[in-house]
């Protein structure tokens, strides 16, 4: 999907952020929380307007709500992804439902955070997405661990794996995700595993790629099972 080109978010230039959410209260709340750390270049409260304005202003990062009429965040991500692949998305939601989370990630979002996130954490997440890294909340890490469960035998028979590169997590990725799911911040994960933060980020990005590209049978089945619940 996205190329790995840095958007040039150096210290001389603030990250340009666009907000999409149908709740105005939330829009102004996020604006206040982000403060001066980033440059908010605009906002939209519906899918059609969002696609149009994002296409004009081409921000670095779009903070997009998952739940909106007319297709939600997923529709915005898919439309912009076709025309402006350099724009990066961070999904925000009150919902922790698995199919929403996996849906926006597979549509192309580089991360997912819940709306309860604190201001500094949100700024940090935006910066990270702007730098081309992935942002995993504990919940998302848990989902991925669950969907990529290591024991296909227990799930009733061998699962055909089309591409082992993409369809499995490495033990190290699993360790990183486990710590994130336990509520560790990236730098705490790095300290715990005695690796650099950069390495943690590259593991998480690798997981994100697998999550977006894997045709793993288990992933779809897992998601559909969760939808039924």
């Amino acid at each position: 999907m996205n190329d790995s080109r840095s958007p040039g978010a150096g210290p001389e230039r603030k990250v340009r952020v666009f907000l999409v959410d149908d709740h105005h209260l939330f829009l102004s709340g996020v604006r206040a929380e982000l403060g001066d750390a980033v440059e908010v270049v605009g906002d939209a409260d519906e899918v059609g307007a969002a696609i149009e304005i994002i296409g004009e202003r081409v921000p670095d990062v779009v903070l997009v709500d998952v739940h909106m009429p007319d297709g939600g965040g997923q529709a915005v991500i898919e439309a912009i992804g076709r025309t402006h692949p350099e724009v990066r998305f961070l999904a925000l939601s009150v919902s922790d439902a698995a199919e929403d989370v996996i849906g926006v990630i597979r549509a192309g979002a580089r991360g997912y955070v819940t709306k309860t996130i604190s201001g500094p954490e949100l700024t940090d997440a935006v910066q990270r997405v702007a730098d081309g890294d992935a942002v995993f909340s504990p919940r998302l890490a848990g989902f991925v661990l669950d969907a990529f469960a290591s024991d296909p035998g227990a799930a009733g028979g061998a699962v055909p794996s089309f591409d082992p590169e993409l369809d499995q997590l490495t033990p190290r990725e699993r360790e990183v995700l486990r710590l994130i799911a336990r509520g560790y911040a990236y730098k705490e994960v790095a300290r715990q595993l005695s690796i650099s933060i950069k390495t943690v980020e590259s593991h998480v990005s690798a997981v994100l790629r697998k999550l977006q590209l894997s045709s793993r049978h288990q992933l779809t089945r897992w998601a559909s099972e969760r939808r039924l619940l």
Partner: protein
Amino acid sequence: MAGGVAGGLAARFGIDANLIRFAFVLVAIGAGTGLAAYVVAWLIIPAEGTSTSIGRRALGDRRTVALALAFITALGSVLVVLAAIGLSFAVNLIWPVSIAVGGLVVVWRDADVEERTHLSELMGRAPLIGSGGSHTRRATIVRVVVGVVLVASGLGTLVASAHPTLATARAVIAANVVIVGFLVVFGPWWLRLARDLAVERRERVRSEERANMAATVHDSVLQTLALIQRAAGDQGEVTRLARAQERELRAWLFEGRPPGSFHDADVATVSQAVAVIVRDVEASHRVAVESVNVGDCELNGELRALLAAGREATVNAATWSGAPVVSIFVEVEPAQVSVFVRDRGQGFAPGAVARDRRGIAESIRARMTRHGGSAVIRSAPGQGTEVELVMPRTGAVRERQ
């Protein structure tokens, strides 16, 4: 049969359990060696899902060893006497039967609770030993006296009649002398052991009850009292807490529903239990609880204990850490279930907890160890706390998906 040895061997070697049972029965008829082999196997093969065998546990328990020796000497005495009378089959039986009985004693003493209940059921069914439990001491004395009188009168008639079998009678007398000798030597020791055993069993039952009671009271009443102290200024909140606690306590004392347990019919899986923890803790404390579940499975006794400890850790974090958010991470793996409870609150120095604060010691650590799991608590002042609880899964639990 009794100890599940045949089943265990079958599982180990992949042979039909009934074949093994049949083999044991065959050998058992052959001079009782099979019986001994069965009991020895019982001692050294760990039960399914546990890692230590009964035999290994027994070695660390001097009293059990003494007791087993007592039974072996007693039985050996009887058999030696029988042999002296001239019943030659007894000689062949001495070793196998002594080993078997000694082994059974060890099994009885160091088997876990489940196995012990199973054993006492078996005992109840065996007509000879079965009635033993209900006898009073007086009844025992009466029985012994009657027995002695009977034996003596029998001997008397034999001797008096000057029957040709007087030679046999001589042997019988010799045997009696041996019996008396054994009794004089070992009798008092046997008696003392028996008495100690009864006292000790009562003690153990009592202290187990006390530990369970303490854990329950801590989880409910003491936690609520702590909350009430913290909410002292808020009259409505104090009343609400007190009423909720009262309801819970009544349910426990009069309806037998332990507080904080997952005994409700609608809580059957790990993820449901976690949802209950989140709901309850968020309702009674002013914190957000964020849970992440990976995998799911049916609850069993051990997992209920694991989640009760997890709930306790969550309540502790919500009460003491001062952090607005507590995270729970639960992962179900094929071999184990782990629970991590983490907060970013004030933390504490694990060494500096007062002795009467039983939360960590009783409700978390002891509860986990009692059920075969482990608990690790990492904390330092100012750095938050993380509680790691791990419970191995026993074979009885099936994967849910």
